[in-house]
C-alpha cells in the first residue's frame, strides 16, 4: 500500500535562472511555498527578489527552470497564464490607471462581456461583497489619482481578489506606506490567510518579516542563501544572512574635529505643485570636518533635502546658507552656482542623475564642471585635459577598467559610483552631499568608498550622508539626524544609537 503523499506545495520553483545581458539576476533558485501560509522573501536591493517574482507572474521569462503550481508543472509565458493559475500580484509600482475609476481598474482584463455596463454592475456587487468579507472598503467611483497611496494599494489587492486569485504576491508593499497603513495592511493579510489565501511577501524590511510571516527565504546576489521558520529565527540572524557580512563595518576613524559651520538651514520647507509638504521646517547645521548622517525610510524627504541643498530645487520657505551665501525663495540657487561656492554633490541615483550612460567616461568625469578652466579655455573644451583628468581620477579611485574612452554604461555599478565620487571629491569641496553612497555596489567597493569619504572628512570637508542602509549611517556618521515625513525628528550620536531606537524614530513613533 502506498504511503499518503503530503499535500502538494502551492508553488514550487525548481532551478530558476535569469540573466539580463551581462547581469545574472537570478541564479538557480528553488523554493517551496505551502498553501495557506505567509512566506517572506528577504534580501537587499538588487538581490533578485522582484525579478524572481516577475518570472513567477509571467512578466519575464526564465532562461531555465521549472514552475509547479499545486503539484502540476505550469508554463508562465505571460501574466495571463499566471492569472489562470490563480496567482495575483501587487506590484511595488502600482499597476493602476490614474485616469480610471476604481471600478474600471478593477474590471480591466476581466470585464465579463463585450459591453462594459453589465460587467461594471456585476463588479460593483462583487466589490461590495469583498469589502464586507475582508474589510477592504473603497469608493468604487473614485478616480484612482484622487486616492491616497494606501487606498490605491487596497485597490490593487481587490483587483487580485476580484480575479479569484488564491495566491497573492506582494512586492515591497510597505515601501510607500505610513506605519499605520502598514499595520492595517498586515491585518488584511492575516484575514486573507485565515480564508486560505497563500501569500508571498517580498521585502527588505526585517521587522515586517518577523511580524507577518510563517516562513522566510533569504536571497543574496540572485541566490537563495537560507530558509528558516520565522519563529526559529530573528532580525539579527536574518540581517547577517541578507548582507553576508557582519552588519557593522569596522571603520577606523579619528575622533571628530569640528570646525566652522559651512552649511546651515533655517525653517527650510518645500511644498510641491499639489500642495504636499515634502520638507517641513528643517533646521540643520553642518560643520567642517564632520559627517552628518541622515537616517530615514525612503520617501520621507531625504531626496528633496538633497535637491534643495544642492540647488536643484528652490525652497518654498525658510533659508539655506552655504559658505556664507544665502539662498531663500526670493533668491533661488542653482547647481552651477553651488559648485562655485564649493559644494559638491554625489547624487542618490547615479544612472538617472550622476552620469550620462551614453557619454564616454572622460565626458562623465567633468559633468557639472564643464564650464570654465581647467576644462574650457577660450570657449572650447580642452579634450586632452579632460582625458588626463579622467585618467587621474581613475588611478586615484581605482576605477576599472582604466579607460577614459569607454562608454560610462560599460562600467559596473561600483566603478560608475567610484567615478562619480572621484569627480566630486577631486575638487576638494568644502561641503559634500552624498546620497546613497553605496547603493548597488559590491562589498569591496563599499569599503573603499567609505574610507575615501572618511578621508575627505578628515581633511576638513563638511559632509552630509543620506542612506537607507542603517548600518552605513551608523558606521560613517559623527552625528545622526533622523527624518520622518519631511521633518528632522531627532538627533542621535552613533555611539549611543541602536537600531531599535533609530527604527522607532524613523517610523515617527518616538523622538529623541
Amino acid at each position, binding site marked *: 500500500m502506498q504511503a499518503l503523499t503530503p499535500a502538494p506545495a502551492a508553488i514550487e520553483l525548481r532551478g530558476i535562472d535569469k540573466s*539580463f545581458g551581462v547581469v545574472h539576476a537570478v541564479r538557480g533558485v528553488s523554493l517551496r511555498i505551502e498553501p495557506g501560509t505567509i512566506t517572506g522573501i528577504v534580501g537587499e536591493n538588487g538581490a533578485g527578489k522582484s525579478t524572481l517574482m516577475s518570472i513567477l*507572474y509571467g*512578466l*519575464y521569462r526564465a532562461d531555465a527552470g521549472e514552475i509547479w503550481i499545486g503539484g502540476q508543472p505550469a508554463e508562465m509565458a*505571460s*501574466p*495571463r*497564464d*499566471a*492569472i*489562470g493559475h490563480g496567482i495575483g*500580484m501587487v*506590484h511595488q509600482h502600482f*499597476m*493602476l*490607471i*490614474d*485616469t*480610471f475609476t476604481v471600478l*474600471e481598474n478593477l*474590471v*480591466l*482584463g*476581466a*470585464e465579463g*462581456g*463585450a*459591453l*462594459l*455596463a453589465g*460587467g461594471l454592475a456585476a463588479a460593483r456587487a462583487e466589490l461590495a461583497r469583498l469589502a464586507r468579507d475582508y474589510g477592504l472598503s473603497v469608493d468604487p467611483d473614485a478616480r484612482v489619482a484622487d486616492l491616497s497611496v494606501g487606498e490605491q494599494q487596497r485597490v490593487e489587492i481587490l483587483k487580485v481578489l476580484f480575479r479569484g486569485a488564491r495566491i497573492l504576491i506582494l512586492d515591497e508593499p510597505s515601501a510607500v506606506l505610513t506605519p499605520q497603513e502598514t499595520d492595517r495592511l498586515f491585518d488584511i493579510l492575516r484575514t486573507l490567510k485565515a480564508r486560505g489565501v497563500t501569500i508571498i511577501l517580498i521585502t527588505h524590511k526585517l521587522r515586517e518579516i518577523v511580524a507577518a510571516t510563517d516562513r522566510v527565504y533569504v536571497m543574496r546576489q540572485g541566490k537563495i542563501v537560507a530558509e528558516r521558520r520565522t519563529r526559529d529565527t530573528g532580525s539579527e540572524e536574518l540581517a547577517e544572512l541578507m548582507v553576508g557580512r557582519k552588519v557593522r563595518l569596522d571603520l577606523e576613524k579619528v575622533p571628530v574635529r569640528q570646525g566652522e559651520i559651512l552649511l546651515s538651514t533655517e525653517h527650510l520647507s518645500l511644498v510641491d505643485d499639489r500642495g504636499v509638504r515634502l520638507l517641513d521646517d528643517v533646521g540643520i547645521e553642518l560643520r567642517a570636518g564632520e559627517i552628518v548622517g541622515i537616517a530615514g525610510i525612503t520617501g520621507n524627504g531625504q531626496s528633496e533635502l538633497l535637491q534643495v541643498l544642492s540647488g536643484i530645487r528652490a525652497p518654498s520657505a525658510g533659508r539655506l546658507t552655504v559658505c556664507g551665501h544665502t539662498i531663500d525663495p526670493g533668491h533661488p540657487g542653482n547647481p552651477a552656482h553651488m559648485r562655485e561656492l564649493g559644494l559638491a554633490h554625489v547624487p542618490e541615483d547615479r544612472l538617472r542623475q550622476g552620469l550620462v550612460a551614453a557619454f564616454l567616461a572622460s565626458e562623465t568625469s567633468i559633468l557639472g564642471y564643464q564650464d570654465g578652466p581647467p576644462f574650457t579655455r577660450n570657449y572650447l573644451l580642452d579634450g586632452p585635459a579632460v582625458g588626463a583628468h579622467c585618467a587621474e581620477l581613475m588611478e586615484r579611485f581605482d576605477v576599472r577598467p582604466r579607460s577614459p574612452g569607454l562608454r560610462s554604461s560599460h562600467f559596473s555599478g561600483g566603478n560608475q559610483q567610484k567615478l562619480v565620487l572621484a569627480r566630486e571629491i577631486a575638487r576638494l569641496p568644502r561641503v559634500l552631499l552624498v546620497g546613497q553612497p553605496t547603493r548597488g555596489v559590491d562589498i569591496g567597493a563599499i569599503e573603499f568608498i567609505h574610507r575615501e569619504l572618511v578621508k575627505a572628512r578628515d581633511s576638513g570637508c563638511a559632509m552630509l550622508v543620506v542612506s537607507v542602509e542603517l548600518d552605513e549611517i551608523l558606521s560613517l556618521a559623527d552625528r545622526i539626524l533622523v527624518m520622518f515625513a519631511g521633518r528632522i525628528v531627532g538627533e542621535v550620536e552613533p555611539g549611543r544609537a541602536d537600531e531599535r531606537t533609530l527604527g522607532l524614530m524613523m517610523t515617527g513613533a518616538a523622538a529623541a
Partner: protein
Amino acid sequence: MDEAFSFVFLMLASTLRVATPLVLCAMGGLFSEKGGIVDVGLEGKMLMAAFFAAATSAITGSAWAGVAAAVIAAEALALLHGLACVTYRGNQVVSGVAINILAAGLTVVLGTAWFARGGQTPPLVGDQRLMPIFLPEAGDNILVYVALLSVPFTWWIIARTRFGLRLRAVGEMPLAVDAAGLSVASLRYRAVLLCGLFAGLAGAYLSIGQNAGFSRDMTAGQGFIALAAIIFGKWRAWPAFGACLIFGLLDAVAIRLQGVRLPGLGEVPVQLIQAMPYLLTMFLLAGFIGRAVAPKAAGVPYEKEH
C-alpha cells in the same frame, strides 16, 4: 428671408462638405492616439487612399470598388505604421513622417506611370463617383453620413465597450494592461487598423466624393488639421467633432470672404483664416485655452524587458 435661409443652408452644407474628411480622419486618429500610438501619418494614409480610390474607380467604373481600394491602401500603410511602432518599437513620429513622404511620392509616381496625366487620375463621371443621396446641391454622399455616424460610434466604442476600456488603458499605462494578462501589441494593432479604416474612407471621400478624381497633394494638410482637431478636442470624440466643424466653417468662410471688405476690419486675409486651425491649436497647446492632456503613454514604445 428666403435668401438668408438659403445662405445659412449653403454655409452649413459647405461646412459639412469640408468637415467630412476631417471628421473621419479625426475619429481614426482618435483610436490610434487613445491606444498610445501617435499618428502624424494621417495625411499620408488619406492621400494614398484618395489615389487608390480614384485609380480603382477609374479603371473598374465602380465607386464602391474605389472605396474598398482606398480602405485597403490606407490599411496597408496602417500596418506598416504598426509594424514600425509596435513590433519594432521605432519612433512613432519618424514612422508617420516617412508614411507622409512615401505617400506624397508614390501617388504621383504610380499616377504618372498608370495614367500619364502628370500625377492626376482621369476625371471621374457617373457611377465612378459617390453621388449625393438626398440633396444634390449639398453634396451629401454616403460618406458624409458615415462621418456623422462615426462620431457616436467612436464615442460609444471608447466609452462603453470592453475594447474601449482596454484601448484607453493601453494608451495610459501599457504595463498595467500587460500585468492584467492582456496583449499590448494586439490592442495597439487593432487601434492602428481602426485608424487606417477611417483614414481610408476620408481619402475616398476626397477623390471620388467631393472631387471627381485625384490630383497630387490633394489632401493639402487636412490630415494635420484632423490631428489638430483631436488635440483641440482634448482626445474626446464629440469635442473633436466640434473642432472639425469649426475648422470646416472657417474654410467655408474663407472662400466666402475672398476679396470681401468687412466694415471696420478691411479685407481679412484668406491665409489668416486658413491658418486659424493651426494657430488655435497652438494657443490651446500653450495652455491659453484650458489644458489638453494627451494619453500618457502616447508616443512611447512599450518595452517590457530591458
